[in-house]
């Protein structure tokens, strides 16, 4: 980024460029790994989805049986794509907001490679048949210590960015990102120790498994997505977060209740009734932070913000992420109600709300952030505007189609499962159309991710795309960001 030496007296431009240059290599390496994993996960997920409706598809391959390919897809999505991409954007965001010029990104790249080798071993382990039976933790236990060390090396850089930075103030995005960075190793070590290395006895295992599954979604993916959305909205709209003084309440209430809400997944399960009730009320209390966060995020769109949605794809990604955060949390609250839980538990409905978090909230926020940050890191514009639009609409269509079909299918499945007069084979038969729609959604998502990957590869690897026209490095004056104005209140 030597092209953008300070060209104006406004300091932040040059500073932002230096910060970006320092994290460029690790962020791009992590993003490249993440995108590879996203494609892998989408492909594996599509295979799993096809197998649900056509069991004879690839039936002769032992490594691709449904029981292996489905957890492999979920783990590739969560750890390959989720953690790599999450750390990439967290590193960039933290460096930017802390105004830290990080030295020595090389070590970070080594840690990133180690993490991805670990995930690869884990996924291969699942496909080879060595998986655990714990949802979201199917990777063989042997890779877990390895993964944890690699993760800590990477996350330490992000935390280090906060310590080393020169910014005197903390912004709400930093709370969310920092908290998520600490919550994930807590979840991994506690669940790994209590389930694999020193297993607890009896039904406590199912409590730990539910706590981990919910924690991974609600304490890693959702907070990272929220941190990004909290940053992108004022960044692109030029308006402050509405009712920002409430944001700390939203954060602390969410942190307090989310860790408990996992027990609601065990409704009517073989665990003590008070545990289920505690999980249910923790889920109900989540209405409070969700109300605060909804006011914060959607309030920014009041007064002309909605028109801005038509202008920028990044903003659209961020808006969808905000919408799905509220929606998915409301689904969790609904599923904690005993009457609803009796129908939705053990159906596709529960799976749909998990996908809503990991895809609708986290992935959409990351897509938006990458579309914003990658050209600034590389110093070039995205090669294909049409692929960006195609990615957004394909991803949105896939997300909505999968969400709607799995929710409706899950409700029907749950209603019929509770009716003893309907044979089980008929229940399976009746969910087939919904699963076929979800398979179509998986294909749309894969297409969208391909568009994303092609654009990213071209952006990073081909310096002279469209050499004739505006391929030149982005002039620094275009990157200059104006000052945000404080909203003037009536008082």
């Amino acid at each position: 980024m030597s092209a953008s030496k300070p060209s104006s007296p406004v300091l932040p431009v040059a500073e932002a460029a230096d910060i970006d240059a320092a994290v460029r290599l690790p962020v791009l390496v992590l993003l490249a790994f993440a995108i590879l994993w996203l494609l892998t996960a989408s492909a594996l997920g599509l295979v799993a989805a096809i197998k649900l409706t056509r069991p004879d598809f690839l039936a002769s391959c032992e490594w691709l049986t449904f029981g292996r390919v489905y957890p492999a897809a979920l783990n590739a999505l969560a750890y390959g794509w989720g953690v790599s991409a999450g750390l990439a954007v967290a590193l960039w965001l933290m460096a930017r907001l802390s105004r830290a010029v990080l030295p020595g990104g090389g070590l970070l790249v080594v840690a990133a490679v180690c993490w991805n080798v670990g995930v690869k071993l884990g996924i291969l382990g699942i496909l080879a048949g060595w998986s655990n039976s714990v949802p979201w933790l199917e990777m063989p236990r042997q890779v877990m210590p390895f993964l944890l060390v690699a993760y800590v090396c990477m996350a330490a850089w992000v935390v280090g960015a906060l310590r080393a930075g020169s910014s005197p103030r903390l912004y709400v995005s930093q709370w969310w990102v920092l908290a998520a960075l600490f919550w994930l190793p807590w979840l991994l070590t506690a669940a790994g120790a209590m389930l694999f290395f020193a297993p607890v006895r009896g039904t406590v295992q199912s409590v730990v498994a539910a706590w981990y599954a919910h924690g991974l979604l609600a304490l890693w993916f959702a907070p990272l997505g929220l941190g990004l959305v909290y940053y992108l909205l004022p960044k692109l709209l030029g308006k402050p977060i509405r009712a920002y003084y409430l944001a700390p309440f939203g954060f602390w209430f969410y942190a307090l209740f989310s860790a408990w809400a996992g027990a609601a997944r065990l409704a009517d399960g073989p665990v003590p009734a008070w545990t289920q009730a505690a999980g249910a009320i923790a889920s109900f209390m989540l209405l409070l932070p969700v109300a605060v966060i909804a006011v914060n995020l959607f309030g920014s769109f009041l007064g002309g913000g909605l028109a801005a949605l038509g202008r920028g794809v990044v903003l659209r990604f961020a808006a969808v992420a905000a919408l799905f955060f509220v929606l998915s949390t409301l689904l969790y609250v609904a599923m904690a109600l005993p009457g609803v839980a009796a129908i939705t538990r053990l159906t596709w409905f529960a799976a749909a709300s998990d996908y809503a978090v990991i895809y609708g909230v986290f992935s959409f926020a990351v897509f938006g952030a990458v579309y914003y940050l990658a050209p600034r890191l590389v110093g070039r514009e995205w090669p294909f505007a049409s692929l960006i639009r195609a990615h957004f609409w394909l991803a949105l269509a896939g997300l909505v189609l999968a969400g709607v079909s799995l929710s409706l299918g899950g409700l029907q499945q749950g209603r019929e499962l509770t009716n003893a007069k309907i044979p089980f084979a008929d229940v399976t038969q009746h969910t087939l159309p919904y699963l076929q729609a979800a398979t179509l959604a998986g294909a749309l998502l894969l297409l969208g991710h391909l568009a994303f990957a092609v654009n990213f590869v071209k952006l990073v690897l081909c310096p002279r795309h469209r050499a004739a026209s505006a391929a030149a490095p982005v002039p620094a004056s275009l990157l200059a960001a104006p000052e945000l104005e404080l909203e003037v209140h009536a008082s």
Partner: protein
Amino acid sequence: MSSIPSSLGPRLESAAASDDSIQRVHAGLLGQKPEPEPGGYALAPLALLGLMSALILGCCIFFVRNRGGFDPLVYNGRIDPKSAANTSAALTPEKIIANGKAIYGLSCIQCHGPEGKGQPSLFPPLAGSDWANGSEDRVIRILLHGLKDPIKVKTVDSTLDFASSNKMPSLLAPPYGYSDAKISFVLTYVRQAFGNNAPPITAEKVTAVREEIAAHKGEFTQADLLAVP
């Protein structure tokens, strides 16, 4: 918002605010008091407080109703283990014997003794007794209305004659006033403790016998009882 530059298009999204200004403005907003409504109060914090209070109240009610008595073995929150123990629906053989033993210790042990051996020439034994292990109709009658006058009791190794001076009181009457269920518990206990091995007696059977002998006044005699099968 005239300061927003025209969009650069999706290939390079333009920023509308610098990082530094975002943090500076929001740091100022964090300490800012909420905007008051025309009436002079701020709506948002009040609404939030109301929502919080309602949620806490609702959650407390939900938790109390679904806590299952904090019992680690209760998986269905709608069941309260304490009240469930007193209904016959939740009775297990162990609970019946435990209830019967408690009643025996309260009302029978003074005369019939902790081992069910009674006292020579004063109170008849229950251990191995042909009466205690015999006809259900007869033992139920004894407990419901009591027993007077001489009685001959055969045990495993002896035959004993008891004089008429000691009356066995009715367990229906004060100070006992036991329900049919409790009488069935103590009878079942006696018929299965002290080395006895007779079948249990149900509360329904006790009820049936009580209704059958409703017209009878006073204690039964040996002759009355022997007339019953």
